[in-house]
């Protein structure tokens, strides 16, 4: 275990010698299993600390232990040297530990000022003093350099702004430790920059910040320190400036790296001759995607790369009938299509797998069998039920082919892990023998072993003639799996590249920089 003494960082005279928050020997059990086991963790004031680990590593359990959601079975939590016993999140807040969750935990239907003050509103003669509340809110927002109207309804603002209001609320109550849980998942580039500015402001004030994110670039940009967990145990605590990315990934994965098959990519010239299976022109679903043109060929994988908010999902949904096309033309095998519903697209052999596995994918209370058979059954219609024996046979074969575990067909699908749920969804769509499969973030939130399995599966299917659109936030993955990559920025496709001939950095450059046509051409 490598734990180093607190470094002297650049922010002047903040005392670095003693951690502000410390967890020693922490163990949290569920039944007989320990989600975290004898973990030590510490946060220093004025520092941004990142918690890294694959799924199942114990990250979220550790966070819940610090923020009062779960009690410790063993171990001690101290804040500023004094032991802290938390029985609920409100206790944690009172101690100065606040969390900004991925799903904004504020009230959209009341004003910004009220969101900041509720629970400790200023009173006058027993009544709430609204004017004072607005004044106090203004002050806090101003301290953070934010220009938000305190009287406006929270719901009238974007997610990014709501998040900043959540931080303002945290500050207004004597903040010592701020936990940011996947704060940048829904933000665009400018919004991330603003968030980071506010984080640096908080650092100046000596707040200890826990930054939880799977975006490695961001972790390296904003964090000073990183703690790695694996299988519930502490691997180590490191300074980001002293740890190479590749080493970090190794520490997160441990021995679980699996072999990745290299794809037999057909030569680029083969592609030009064939007629595209699907051809889309001028696809627009304002404001997220505009004027997109793509061509999908049989047996080829088209990767879609771009930041969150660049229109990846919207493009996929527009092309598969999930969302309404505002304008644009879709041609499948030479005939123009009007995909007004997913049903219409499925009729043409085009299937979409949503990035929201839980809300738009798995039907939790139905069994694994019923989930797998669902699309086929929907296709056959209400009056042609597939005979139960046939259903079982079909589901069984897919469970075996994709390695779905546990292999219990009658188990409610909601009880499976994320990776296995994704496999069930794949089985459901593959059972239809589609011609084009659109996979939106199929490996998100899945452990590395399952990730590789799915990537290999996609390659195999393409080799067997299936066309795939593969969308992912992880550029390495996209390049590895795809033949060509469409790069999106701000709702437009800026270029479509040959995966074999490009690098992650080149794609990143295309994705991140503000538009200037000559410079783009110079790059490609």
């Amino acid at each position, binding site marked *: 275990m490598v734990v180093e003494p607190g470094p002297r960082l650049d922010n002047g005279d903040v005392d670095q010698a003693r951690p502000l928050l410390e967890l020693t020997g922490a163990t949290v059990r569920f039944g007989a299993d320990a989600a975290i086991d004898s973990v030590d963790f510490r946060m220093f004031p004025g520092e941004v600390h990142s918690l890294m680990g694959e799924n199942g590593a114990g990250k979220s359990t550790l966070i819940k232990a610090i923020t009062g959601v779960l009690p410790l079975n063993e171990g001690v939590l101290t804040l500023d040297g004094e032991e802290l016993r938390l029985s609920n999140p409100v206790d944690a807040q009172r101690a100065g530990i606040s969390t900004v969750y991925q799903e904004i935990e504020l009230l959209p239907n009341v004003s910004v000022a009220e969101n900041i003050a509720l629970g400790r*509103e200023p009173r006058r003669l027993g009544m709430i003093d609204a004017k004072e509340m607005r004044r106090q809110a203004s002050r806090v927002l101003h301290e953070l350099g934010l220009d938000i*109207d305190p009287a406006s309804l929270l719901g009238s603002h974007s997610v990014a702004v709501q998040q900043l209001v959540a931080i303002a609320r945290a500050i207004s109550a004597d903040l010592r430790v701020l936990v940011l849980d996947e704060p940048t998942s829904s933000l665009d580039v400018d919004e991330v920059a603003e968030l980071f500015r506010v984080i640096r402001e908080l650092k100046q004030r000596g707040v200890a910040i826990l930054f939880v994110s799977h975006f490695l670039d961001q972790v390296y940009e904003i964090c000073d320190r990183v703690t790695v967990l694996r299988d519930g145990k502490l691997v180590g605590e490191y300074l980001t400036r002293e740890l190479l990315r590749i080493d970090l990934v190794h520490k997160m994965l441990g021995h679980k790296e699996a072999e990745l098959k290299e794809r037999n990519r057909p030569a680029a010239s083969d592609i030009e001759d064939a007629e595209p299976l699907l051809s889309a022109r001028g696809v627009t679903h304002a404001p997220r995607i505009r004027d997109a043109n793509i061509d999908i060929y049989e047996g080829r994988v088209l990767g879609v790369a771009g930041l969150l908010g660049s229109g990846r999902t919207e493009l996929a949904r527009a092309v598969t009938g999930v969302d309404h096309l505002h304008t644009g033309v879709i041609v499948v095998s030479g005939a123009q299509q009007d995909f007004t519903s997913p049903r219409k697209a499925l009729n043409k052999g085009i299937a979409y797998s949503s990035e929201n596995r839980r809300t738009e994918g798995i039907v939790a209370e139905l069994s694994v069998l019923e989930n797998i058979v669902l699309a086929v059954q929907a296709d056959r219609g209400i009056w042609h039920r597939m005979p139960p024996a046939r259903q079982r046979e079909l589901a069984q074969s897919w469970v075996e082919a994709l390695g779905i575990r546990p292999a219990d067909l009658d188990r409610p699908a909601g009880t499976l892990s994320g990776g296995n749920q994704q496999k069930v969804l794949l089985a459901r769509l593959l059972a239809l023998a589609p011609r084009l499969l659109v996979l939106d973030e199929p490996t998100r939130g899945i452990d590395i072993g399952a990730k590789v399995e799915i990537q290999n599966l996609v390659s195999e299917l393409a080799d067997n003639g299936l066309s795939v659109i593969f969308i992912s936030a992880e550029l390495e993955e996209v390049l590895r799996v795809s033949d060509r990559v469409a790069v999106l920025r701000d709702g437009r496709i800026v270029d479509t590249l040959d995966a074999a001939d490009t690098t992650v950095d080149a794609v990143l450059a295309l994705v991140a920089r503000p538009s200037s046509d000559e410079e783009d051409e110079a790059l490609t």
Partner: protein
Amino acid sequence: MTTLDTASVGQTNTLAYKYHAFMSRRASLMPTFAAIAILVLLFVGAEIFLRGDFITPRNISALLLDNAPLLVLAVGMTFVIITAGIDLSVGSVMAFTGIWLAKLLGDGVSAAIAIPLVLVGGALVGMLIGVLVQYFDVQPFIASLAGLFLARGLAYVVSLSSIKVENDAVLWLQSTRWSAGGWYITPTGIIALLVVVIGAFVMHFTRFGRTIYAIGGNEQSARLMGLNIARTKVAVYVISGVCAGLAGLLLTAYSGAGYPRNGIGTELDAIAAVVIGGTLLTGGRGYVLGSMVGVFVFGAINTVINFMGAEQSWTRIIVGLLLLLFIVVQRAIVARAERRG
């Protein structure tokens, strides 16, 4: 990012910016404005249609007094609906407290004891519902259904037929009139208006009221903010029950008798009035004053129907259609916002 959704200084004085700022602050008032618009239209329309005979001090005063019980019910219902709940028991509770009051008075119990007693009765039914909803995770729909059954049955247990009230104190509430130049009001009217004022005040200036909005906005968040969810959720149903009890008192004073068959379907009228008044059934948005407007819309329609000599059933039909219109428009607005987002 600070420039992303606020305008630069030079633009702050334009109309567009002012409109945007207004909407971002007052968007939840729009449905209530619509209700007021409808009320005005109704009045104007009726005035024209009935050739100047509608907007008279007498008719307006009667509007309040005829609908005093409904007004009180609507205030209680507003509290419940803003927490995203619903209370189907209020009509039956109103009948139960009404007949129970009549019986107590008829048995010689003094009004000073009988009235608080029936109000407590209403509160207890409300508490039952609130406890089921909060502590046993029962859906408000089902829980208040139980309350409806209970209260309706109890009304008939008290008496299978109507009981006349001869108690002076109670009758005084309705028969006394204070008039000034054609306008008049009775104590029942004052009670109803008082309930509205107190309700509006509590909603906007007390932590309890703000907690109600918080629960409707996002219950999970409200809990994390340290607000006392449990007590508040039970309390809104108790308040609804007390309001129903009060409505029972007002109705009994109005008709001079208690009748166990009263109030069948009245909870629907209350819900309709509240929704028309701009409160969203999904919770988190709405105003007590808006519900008052909704009750007046209901009452005005009823008055016009009466004047026209048409069937009583037309009132419910028209209110139903109006409700439908509101709901469809609300849905269209939400759908447009969803599509843009």
